[in-house]
């Protein structure tokens, strides 16, 4: 027994740690860094726009918002830790949707201060990417001279850039180093006890993300339960970015599977263990992407919900196939669980 104790107490090079570090260095941190830069750029663009509101600079602002959204949506796979945990709970502060339009409209016609610094105390339904989207794609196009709208825009983009920086710092090894919780769980008191736990979190999140797409981004909008399309429940419906959001979500999953920027991915880890699931994964992933492309040819996600609901459901089916593959073959091949009950087990 003492021999066993000795052997288990030792640590060695662990390919799972290498994989997690690589994800952190090549995907997670750079993506959040990019999100910071893009939200800062978005905020910076609001100042000249509000000084001289015109359609051309509004289009530029819309593009800046669109661009800022990409890294954020790609990292939706990281909807845990600083994203979800109190007190930060940064996810909803950055991206609470569906937007409560009435709340924003009330603020727009109200008299409360919209100075950038007060946004920190605003509720999640009054700020974040969806609110900025609403301002850029609905409020300001209707009244480009709206001073209150512009004030709201400047404040909310400022707050957004601050929150982006906060989530970046929360993850960054130079900041609060949440990444360290994943790469070296034993050294950080937190959600995970072992590298197996943290790896399981990330990989399971791939599957959760797909389920969220299917449940929240597709089914709720389709109004399957009530029998009619619920436009207000569709993500990014003002900007018509709904399908692009889903595409970005899938790109995040793809990056974790294949690695990014010469970094390691699930594929490398599995190959070293004698599994090659690349073709099966790619096949399913490509089917999802092709379906998105095909839907885009008909118009926006909302358009498709009205004219081709079967096509939208087909996308859900393709996503289900990818989800099942991740939850079954990939998690299985990675030996990422012990299904012992949390309260003991056998």
């Amino acid at each position, binding site marked *: 027994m003492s021999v066993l104790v000795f052997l288990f107490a030792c640590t060695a090079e662990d390919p799972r740690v290498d994989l997690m570090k690589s994800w952190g260095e090549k995907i997670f941190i750079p993506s959040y860094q990019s999100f910071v830069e893009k939200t800062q750029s978005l905020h910076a663009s609001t100042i000249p726009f509000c000084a001289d509101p015109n359609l051309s600079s509004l289009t530029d602002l819309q593009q800046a918002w669109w661009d800022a959204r990409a890294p954020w949506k790609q990292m939706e796979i990281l909807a845990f830790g600083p994203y979800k945990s109190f007190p930060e709970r940064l996810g909803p502060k950055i991206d609470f949707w569906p937007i409560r339009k009435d709340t924003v409209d009330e603020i727009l016609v109200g008299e409360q201060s919209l100075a950038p610094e007060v946004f920190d105390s605003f509720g999640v339904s009054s700020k974040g990417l969806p609110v900025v989207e609403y301002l850029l794609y609905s409020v300001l196009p209707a009244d480009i001279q709206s001073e209150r709208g512009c004030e709201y825009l400047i404040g909310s983009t400022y707050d957004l850039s601050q929150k982006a920086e906060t989530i970046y710092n929360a993850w960054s090894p130079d900041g609060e180093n949440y990444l360290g919780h994943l790469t070296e769980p034993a050294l950080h008191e937190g959600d995970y006890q072992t590298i197996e736990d943290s790896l399981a979190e990330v990989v399971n999140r791939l599957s959760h993300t797909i389920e969220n797409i299917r*449940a929240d981004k597709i089914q709720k909008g389709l109004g399957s339960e009530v*029998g009619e399309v619920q436009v207000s429940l569709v993500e990014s419906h003002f900007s018509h970015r709904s399908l692009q959001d889903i595409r970005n979500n899938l790109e995040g999953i793809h990056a974790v599977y294949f690695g990014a920027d010469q970094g390691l991915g699930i594929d490398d880890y599995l190959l070293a263990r004698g599994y090659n699931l690349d073709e099966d994964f790619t096949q399913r992933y490509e089917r999802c992407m092709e379906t998105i492309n095909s839907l885009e040819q008909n118009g926006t996600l909302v358009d498709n919900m009205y004219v081709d609901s079967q096509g939208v459901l087909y996308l859900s089916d393709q996503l289900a196939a990818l989800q099942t593959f991740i939850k079954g073959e990939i998690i*299985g091949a990675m030996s990422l669980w012990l299904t012992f009950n*949390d309260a003991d*087990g*056998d």
Partner: protein
Amino acid sequence: MMQMETEEKRYVHPSGFVAFRTIFGCLLLFSLLRYAYNGWIDTQLLNPKFHFSYYYFQWVYPYSSTLIYGMFGVMIVCAFCIILGYRTRFSAALCCFCFTFVEIIDKSNYLNHYYLVSLLLFWLSCCPEVTKNTNKEYPAIHYSIYWIFRAQLAIVYIYAGLAKISWDWLVKGEPLYTWLQSFIAVPVFGLVCTKPWFAIAMSWGGAVFDLSIVPFLLYPKTRTYAFGVLVFFHMTLWFMFPIGIFPFVMIASATLFLDYKWASRYITLHGSSTSLSFSKLIQPLLKVMLVLQILFPLRHLLYSGPVNWTEEGFRFSWRVMLIEKTGTLEYEVHQNGNTFLVFPSRLLEPFQYKALVTQADMIQDYAYFLSKKYRNTDGSPAKVFAHSFIWFNRRKSQRFISADTDLATTQRGFYPKKWILPMDSPH
């Protein structure tokens, strides 16, 4: 006195029994305190909004937090009484009721060792009060008291061993191979234990151990060595896998195979001729229970299909550490002409969802619940279909439940579940 201790006289030294009772009481107490300390009373029993009840036990429900916390309080007091040897029959009976009640609130919480604890408490509640007198001496007890526990342990080991005689266990080394991969970073051991041959060797070792340990424990010449192997076996498993107090319960129970007098240094025999046995009233109950224990684990033979796949007759059958499954499950609900998906992962506690995904009776239970939750406007239950995919012991994922079956119209109970699809790849 010596004469009294012989098998011929059928009354033997009580030290082994009293020692077991005390150790078991300590383990029970530790287990209860640990359960409460970790907050599992809330997370496992009280927080879930939906409970997967056992057939015919729908009345077992956490009616209030006061009741459940009260039951834990009662069990803790009972465990103390068992340790101290005070009112052990009553304490064991009361504890058995409370423990079993808590255990069967939700199928998701099913664990073989909880079941074993319930059984050991049951047997203890049938035993006579073995209490010390003012000289701190105990009366002799009938040898059948030892043998009833030995029989229970033999049932556990032998059925666990028989269940291991399967392709997956002996040829593929599954699920051990899958589980052992988590030791990949452990130096030396990690290099070895992650190899397929190691998993297969360990599987064979486990099967041989389970099937042979009881005869070796019974045979006086091998008993001591067998007990040593047993301790090593269970401690190794405990060290490698999070299996709670199970190994300790097995080790404590295995002491009942040792010489009756093994703890006589601390537990001395009463000098008089007082002796204790099972009451005549209770003896028929013991026989019925024993027969049930032998037959119940065999009920899977009444169903078609591999039990490890269908899990019909899987629980309460000592089928331990045999399967590793994961998968996805969602329901397709047809209500008022609309069709939509319900994702149970969003509605249930994670531990419930984990169990639900792979267990057909639970999938059916939840389908029933959904069919009533989403009634049609005319009051009729909604149709509910399951989309369920399972990855099982390194086979490719496959559909588990027939997607064409409206589960809300299927018959519940112990009837064969013909809507479970056959396994694509038996090996």
